[in-house]
C-alpha cells in the first residue's frame, strides 16, 4: 500500500472534466485506488460518481491511496495530475 497527501489547486476543484481525467488515469493501473477526504470519507478512485460526491473544491486536502502491483506509479501520476491543476489555467 502506498499513499500521499495532496491539496486541490485548480479553481474549479473536482468538476466534471477533472474527475474524468482522474478516472481515465486511475483506470490505467491494476491497483485498487482510493481517494480519502479530510473527514475520512473515502471513495473509489476509479469512480467519477464517487469523486464528484466528495465536493472537492480548491484548497481541500485529500489522500490518494493505492494498493497493488503498480501502486507507487499510480499514486505518483495521480498526485502529479492534481498538482498540475489538471492542465488548467
Amino acid at each position, binding site marked *: 500500500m502506498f499513499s500521499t497527501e495532496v491539496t486541490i489547486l485548480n479553481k474549479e*476543484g473536482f468538476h*466534471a472534466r477533472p474527475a474524468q481525467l482522474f478516472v481515465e488515469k486511475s483506470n490505467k493501473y491494476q491497483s485498487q485506488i482510493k481517494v480519502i477526504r479530510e473527514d475520512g470519507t473515502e471513495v473509489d478512485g476509479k469512480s467519477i460518481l*464517487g469523486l464528484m460526491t466528495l465536493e472537492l473544491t480548491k484548497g481541500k486536502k485529500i489522500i490518494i491511496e493505492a494498493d497493488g502491483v503498480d501502486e507507487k506509479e499510480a499514486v505518483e501520476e495521480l498526485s502529479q495530475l492534481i498538482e498540475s491543476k489538471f492542465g488548467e489555467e
Partner: protein
Amino acid sequence: MSEKLIGIGASNGIKIGTAYLYKPVTVNSKIERETIEESEISNELNRLENAKENSYDELELLIEKVKESLDTENIGIIKTQLEFLNDPSFIPEIGKKIEKNKYTAEKAIQEVVNFYSNLFAGMKDEYLRERGSDIKDIGKRLLRNLVNEKSNQLSEINEKVILVTDDLTPSDTVQLNKEFVQAFVTRIGGKTSHTAILARTFDIPAVLGMGDNMAIIQNGDILIIDGNSGICIVNPDQDEIEDYQRKAEQEFESAKLLKEYINKQAITKDGYQIEIAANIGNPEEAKIALEKGAEGIGLYRTEFLFMNNDHLPTEEEQYQAYKMASETMKEKPLIIRTLDIGGDKELSYFTFPKEMNPFLGYRAIRLTLDRKDIFITQLRAILRASAYGNVKIMFPMISSLAEFRSAKAIYEEAKKQLRDEHITFDEKIELGIMIEIPSAALLADQFAKEVDFFSIGTNDLVQYTLAVDRMNEKVAYLYDYFHPAVLQLIQKTIEASHQAGKWTGMCGGMAGDPVAAPILIGLGLDEWSMDASSISKIKQVISRLDRSSCKLLVEDIFQLGTVEEIRAKLKEFYDSI
C-alpha cells in the same frame, strides 16, 4: 372503423397526426415487491445486468440518433449517463444491495439513486447539483428496462406526433419538444389544469379529460384533434380527414386576420382603453407574451420554478429568473405572485401533510406564512429583481386582513434587510392581493384601504364560491364564472378598489373569454391578464364594443338569477356585435 371520442377542448386548434402513447415512469413510483429470498439473488443480479446492458444500448443509440440535431452540451449529458452506468460506485453498489439486503433490483436501484440524487441536491456547486437529475434519469431508464418496456421518453420524441397520456406533470411539459408534439390528448385534467395552461401558452391544441374511453387509442393510430370542441377522432375515414383539413385551413386564415390585432391597443368604440396583459409560468414565456401583444404580465406564476426543480430554489436562482422576466418586460408591468403551492401543486422534495381537502388546506400564503424562511427568500429575490423593471408583488389565497398584514410585515422585513445590505430595489413597488376567496371579495372595501391593487383569480374564486371541485369531471357542469353570485363578487371587488382610488385586474380564465368581455368592460375591470394566445382575439372583441352599452348589459344581467339566463343574454348580446 373511425371512432369519435369526446373530451374537454382545453386549447384551440385542429391537428391530424399519429398517436404516441406515453407512460411515465418515475424513480419513486411505488415498488410492488421490495425484498427477495436468498435463492432469488442470482436471478435478481441477472435482471440488473440485463437492464444495465439494455440501458447502455439505448443510450448509445440515442447519441447516434441525436448527434446532428443536439448541441454538444446535450450530448455531453447523455454521455455522462453512460459513464454513470459503467461507474464502479453505481451498478456494483446496486448489486451489493441485492446481495446484502436481499432487495429486489427495483428497490436496490431506488435506494442507490435516491442516495446519490439527495447527495447532489445538497451541493453548493450548481453543476454538481444538476448531476442529481442525471442520476434520476438513468435510474428511471434502468427501472423501465427491468420490466422490459420499450423506450418511451418525452425528450426522445423526434418525429411529429400527437401525445396521448394519462396526465402531464409540469416537468414533463417542460421536456417536450414543441417542434414535434403537435397536440395533446389526456385522460384526466380540465380547462384550468396546468397541461391546459401550457398548451395554450405554446399554441398546442389539446383535448383533455377524455376518461377511460382513451384506452382504445393505440400507438401509431391516426388521430384528428379538434381542441376547439374537444373532439378526438381515432382512425378517421377519408371524408373526415378532408373535412378537418378544410377546417384547419379556415382556422389558419382567421388566425391570420386576428394577427392584425396583436400590436393594436385595446380600445372600445367610445374610446375607453383597457390594459391587456398575459399570464406566464417562467421568464421565457415573457418573450412569447410580448410577441403576442401583451402590454404587461398580470400574473407570473412562480411555483413552476419550484416545481421543476429537485430542491427549493435559492435566492440567487430565483433572482436570476425574476430579473430575466423583469428585463424582458422593461417599463411594462410585471406582477409576480408569491409561491402558490399545495392543493394540486406539489413539490417532489417537500412533504405536504395528507389532507382531506387539500384545496382548503395548507397551501399558498398559508404555507409561506408558516415557512417564513421560504417566503423571505422569495421576497428578497423579487425585490432585488425590481431594480430592473416595473415589478409588482401579489399574495395568493388571502382570506383575511390579518393574513395580509402578517405577509406585509415579512415583506417589510425583507425590504429592511436589503436596505441594511445596501442592495438596491424599487422602493415604490406596488403590493396587491389575489381575490380568489369569497371572504376577501366581501371585505374588498377594507382591503382596498391597505393594498395597492387587486387581481381576481376567477378559477379559484368560482371553485370556492360555488363549492365545486374544478378537477372533478362529475361536477364540472356546475363550474361557471357566469354564476350570478360570482359576478356580484367581481363587481364588489372592482367597485371597492375604484372608490379607494386603486385598480383591479383579473388573471383567471374569464379574462380571456370573448363572451365575458362585455361584462368585464361594463364592470370597469382595469387590467385583463390571460393566456398569451387569447390576446389578439380579446383585443378584436374589445374594439367592437362600446362601454355605455356594456354598462346597460351589466344592469340587465344583474336582474337575472341563473347561469342559463345569463349565458343566453350574453350570447344574444355577443351575436349582435
